[in-house]
């Protein structure tokens, strides 16, 4: 082999190596960034959960190891279990309301005239765009017991007295949070479901109605199966979001009124771990919470990964 040919093959090999390693060079920077902003803290989370770590240790940057004590404390604490049950009930109610109402409004969008549809979708997009903290202030004002518009309207109808305090009981507090969360979540669900409904073949529904099928049967046997993948994704996303919801309960109920009786998982973690500066126990709670979310995310992640397999 001549020197020239050898050089040629060498440069080809080099080109092939570069070509093959390109994707790794492309993802390297972001992997490093994720490692720094998330990987390293998560490694610390694991370490923290086995340490006694309070304010003093935070300043010292080190804490004594205590084995599984933090996990034992949390798992033997009835507050944890009550919070877990409350959060699960809260999630089921919120997701249920979001999906059912979302489905109904999406179906309604099919029935109304064009201008009403435009009006309604614009309204939904407007609500969708509201920042969460703004939405909280807004609901806080509307549900205020003195001058809130909710009490005005309800007292006109004669349903409640003039100055009903909506934050008097835990149930009422969490109901207000539910209203706020569902209101905020509806637009995304409605608009996604409506996009899905556009795929249901029209002639199929017409044929069904010609054959005398009742609307409910047509919905159950034709529309629902076609919407199934979207509904599954929306439901799992909503479960993940509502299970971990923080800003709405924390700000609407308010720091002053947040106590173990109305904890949701996130507010529990915030109060017990961060606010009381018991970072070791907080780390144990975080790990338990992250594991639970990881478990419920499996379906969604798998679905999205199969979508992520495609390249152009």
């Amino acid at each position, binding site marked *: 082999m001549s020197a020239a040919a050898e050089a040629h093959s060498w440069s080809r090999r080099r080109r092939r190596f570069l070509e093959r390693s390109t994707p790794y060079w492309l993802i390297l920077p972001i992997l490093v960034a994720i490692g720094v902003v998330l990987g390293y803290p998560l490694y610390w989370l694991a370490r923290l959960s086995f340490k006694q770590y309070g304010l003093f240790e935070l300043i010292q940057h080190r804490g004594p190891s205590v084995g599984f004590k933090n996990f034992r404390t949390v798992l033997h604490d009835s507050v944890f279990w009550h919070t877990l049950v409350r959060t699960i009930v809260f999630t089921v109610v919120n997701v249920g309301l979001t999906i059912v109402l979302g489905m109904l409004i999406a179906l309604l*969008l099919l029935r109304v005239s064009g201008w*009403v549809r435009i009006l309604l979708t614009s309204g939904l997009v407007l609500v969708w765009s509201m*920042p969460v903290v703004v939405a909280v202030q807004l609901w806080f004002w509307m549900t205020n017991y003195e001058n809130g518009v909710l009490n005005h309207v309800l007292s006109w109808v004669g349903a409640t007295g003039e100055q009903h305090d909506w934050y008097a009981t835990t149930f009422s507090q969490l109901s207000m949070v539910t209203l706020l969360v569902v209101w905020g979540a509806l637009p995304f669900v409605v608009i996604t479901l409506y996009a899905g409904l556009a795929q249901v073949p029209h002639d199929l529904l017409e044929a069904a109605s010609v054959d005398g099928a009742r609307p409910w049967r047509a919905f159950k046997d034709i529309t629902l199966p076609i919407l199934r993948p979207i509904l599954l994704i929306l439901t799992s996303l909503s479960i993940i979001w509502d299970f971990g919801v923080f800003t709405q309960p924390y700000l609407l109920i308010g720091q002053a009124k947040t106590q173990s009786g109305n904890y949701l998982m996130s507010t529990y973690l915030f109060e017990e771990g961060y606010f009381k500066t018991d970072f070791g126990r*907080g780390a144990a709670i975080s790990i338990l919470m992250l594991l639970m979310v990881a478990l419920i995310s499996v379906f*969604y992640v798998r679905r999205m990964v199969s979508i992520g397999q495609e390249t152009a």
Partner: protein
Amino acid sequence: MKQAGWNAVGIAVFVVIVFPVFWMISTAFKPDDQIVSLNPTWIPLHPTIAHFTAALHKQYFWTDVKNSLLIVCITVAISIVLAFLAAVALARYRFSGRKAFVVLIIGIQMLPQAGLIIPLYVVLAKYHQTNQLSGVIITYMTFVLPFCVWTLRGFLIGIPKELEEAAMVDGSTRLGVFVKILLPLMGPGLVATSVFAFITSWNEYIFARVLINDQRKNTITVWLSYFLGTSRHTDWGALMAASTLTAIPVVVFFLLVQRRIAFGLTAGAVKG
């Protein structure tokens, strides 16, 4: 007749859903006596902008707007560059470890923020990054980075590979193709993704709340959450004016890009 009935239901739903936003704006323009009146006026009579002036002059408003802008712009600028490279890898190459990388990107987006506050706070405290804007930027990267990768990947997939291949055949280098063909075509996608990343970071609350304990370093959402303070007299008009002001940039941006982005989370599902 039946159509009219459905339309009536549709309008009723519209009224209920939009009412809170309407009420916010309406309250913001009302004089105080109409706000606390036992007979609420729906549309402000004699509208006033006094509440807006009060909100704008409230302490730290402009400082905190500036903080938010600074944090958000830096976060988005860094994230979009890193994410674009990774998105090109995902959309254009098959390589071993690709699936693991996709799982990582999707998985991170599912992590509840509350679950991350303890480790982020403790690690940032260790490096003296609490109560610093730079610390907040680091925490915002945790959700902006994966979001940008996934969304940009979607845009890249929409650009046919043939364009680049044709240019390669014509003798362009990879880098040339990237600069001359991919980048211009990706313009709208890059803008839309940046704007949406801007919105999510602008709206963020918990990380900023946890990390910052100096009013001059707060973000605008934290500023708004402290608006009422502990005073007995509640200035609802000013609170609603401040809320409106906080929402305006977000609403404007959101309306611009909603169509392009919103389906990212469920894209594949809608396509079936």
